[in-house]
């Protein structure tokens, strides 16, 4: 039988620029990278996607990760609350849903 477990698939979007069109600064990226590395075992960068939200057109990095519990989802939510200020955003995108996954070997 394959080893399978339950978890949550979390997707977040990170803007490459703030709403004024300025690239996100170095300290903010360094901070984000440290925070995410401390929080999750791994993530997948799904690439840059273009979007439109309340009059703003922007390019975002779409990042997905699998976490084991809602506690971790909550930790990501907390991180996004801080990121909202650092990335100078009105809101940050957070999507999650329960999944079953396997490490197929």
């Amino acid at each position, binding site marked *: 039988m394959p080893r399978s477990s339950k978890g949550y698939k979390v997707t977040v979007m990170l803007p*490459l620029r703030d709403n004024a069109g*300025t*690239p*996100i*600064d*170095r*300290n903010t*990226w*360094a901070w984000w*990278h*440290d925070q995410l*590395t*401390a*929080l*999750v*075992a*791994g993530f997948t*960068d799904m*690439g*840059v996607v273009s979007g439109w939200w309340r009059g703003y057109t922007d390019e975002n*990095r779409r990042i997905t990760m699998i976490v084991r519990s809602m506690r971790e989802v909550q930790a990501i939510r907390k991180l996004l609350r801080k990121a909202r200020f650092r990335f100078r955003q009105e809101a940050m995108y957070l999507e999650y849903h329960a999944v079953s996954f396997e490490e197929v070997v």
Partner: protein
Amino acid sequence: MSLKRAIEPAAEALSPEEHEFLKQAEKRYRRNMNWFEFEDFAFGMRSPLFSRTRSHLDVLEHPLYLALKEMWLNLGEKQGLVAPSRREDQLARRKTQRSGTPSQERNRAQKRNVAAAHSSAHGRLSKSRN
């Protein structure tokens, strides 16, 4: 932190596998590899950083992580995807303001002295009025 300051201590503290990985990363860095691709290379599944024996918090202080992060941020800046941090902006601005011909610098110094003399004179005046 400059790249040199990040790489030199890293090179001494790394295992042979990590050292080889750092060399590979440096090659890609010098080739100006795409920022996203570099991130995938440096912090992705192939990276020796995330060995099973190392905790996430240990990774943050690992010299290889620090060196790779520095390269990643530098590449982002070079490719216009990352803005310099504000502190660096300020330092660069201060540097530019300071630079100039020696006579310009002398003039600025004289102006500063005059301004300082004025302000101390004002200070004395106001005190004497009180």
